[in-house]
């Protein structure tokens, strides 16, 4: 809502500024054309309706900008409140959404995720849209994901009144998640028989290395003597 008001206000102000520049830099006939079209609008019923709609829209935008500048929250924040002897602990739906998002992103096989949490009749309804990897067994994965999520929400957030966890698998992706190696131009495809990459060591020229003066073996030989 905030963003929409800002976009609309921007469009209105930008259009108005372009009109001003057109009048200043353009042909002097332009103001006359605008005045003529405005007079036509004022005469007709539809024109008046259009102007009234514009007026309402700009009024709404101006008030919302005023409220944003005064740091007034237009939408009330929903919270799940759990009372205790010291006071109360409220968990916002944003926090629950973020928790589920992070948990899903940490789960291997999940490509992308969107979450929507709602409360109806003191029960929680969670809707999750997932894009999964192609190699996953979808029914088994979703069942396990639901169980894990239920346990984690109970354990970490203390949410016991979860009525439903609805999962919608809206796409299956063949792409691997983007890893930091992709930036360095390294291939992400690893063949079965290929040994794993060893960390790169700085190039060394062994021929130029000096020979060690005394090795442990030679010291032992000196002590025990060559025959022993």
């Amino acid at each position, binding site marked *: 809502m905030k963003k929409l008001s800002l976009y609309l206000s921007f469009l209105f102000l930008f259009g108005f500024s372009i009109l001003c520049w057109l009048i200043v830099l353009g042909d002097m006939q332009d103001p006359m054309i605008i005045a003529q079209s405005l007079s036509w609008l004022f005469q007709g019923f539809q024109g008046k309706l259009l102007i009234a709609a514009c007026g309402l829209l700009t009024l709404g935008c101006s008030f919302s900008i005023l409220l944003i500048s005064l*740091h007034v929250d237009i939408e009330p924040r929903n*919270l799940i409140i759990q009372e205790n002897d010291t*006071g*109360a602990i*409220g*968990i*916002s739906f944003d*926090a629950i959404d973020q928790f589920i998002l992070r948990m899903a992103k940490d789960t291997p096989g999940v490509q992308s995720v969107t979450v929507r949490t709602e409360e109806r009749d003191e029960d929680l309804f969670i809707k999750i849209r997932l894009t999964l990897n192609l190699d996953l067994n979808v029914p088994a994965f979703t069942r396990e994901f639901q169980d894990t999520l239920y346990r984690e929400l109970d354990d970490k957030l*203390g949410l016991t009144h979860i009525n439903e966890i609805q999962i919608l698998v809206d796409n299956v992706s063949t792409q691997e998640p983007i890893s930091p190696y992709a930036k360095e131009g390294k291939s992400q495809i690893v063949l079965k028989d290929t040994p794993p990459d060893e960390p790169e060591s700085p190039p060394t020229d062994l021929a130029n290395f000096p020979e060690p003066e005394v090795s442990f073996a030679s010291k032992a030989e000196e002590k025990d003597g060559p025959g022993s």
Partner: protein
Amino acid sequence: MIGYFDTELGRVQIAPAIVRRIIAKEIDINRFFRISGAKIGEQAPKKVLEKSIRINFEQGTVEIILALTVLYGTRIIKEARELQGTITRVLELQAGLTVRRILINVENVFEQEKDKPLLLEECKGIPEPVNSVTAE
């Protein structure tokens, strides 16, 4: 309204800003919670503190409403209860106020920052390592 406690010699009044600072310090010490809207590693500005730590004084007691973000993976209920207890104790000890109620609103989740490499300027204060094994 303003917070106060009575002594034999008279009444001591405590401004909400002081209570806010005490609470902010306790939240900074706690690694599971952060003040909502505060930047990492910086002291929260006054406006953010006023928005995130609301204090209502009533008949010598104080009610606190906190807007916080929580570390991902934390057992929120357990840690929030501990934080409530800590704040209650600290306010009673340091400011002599009676805490009536603490409401913690968890508004979002944050993740632990990964260890960053030290900058050269930061390394200057670190003493040189001393080799314990000496070559004979």
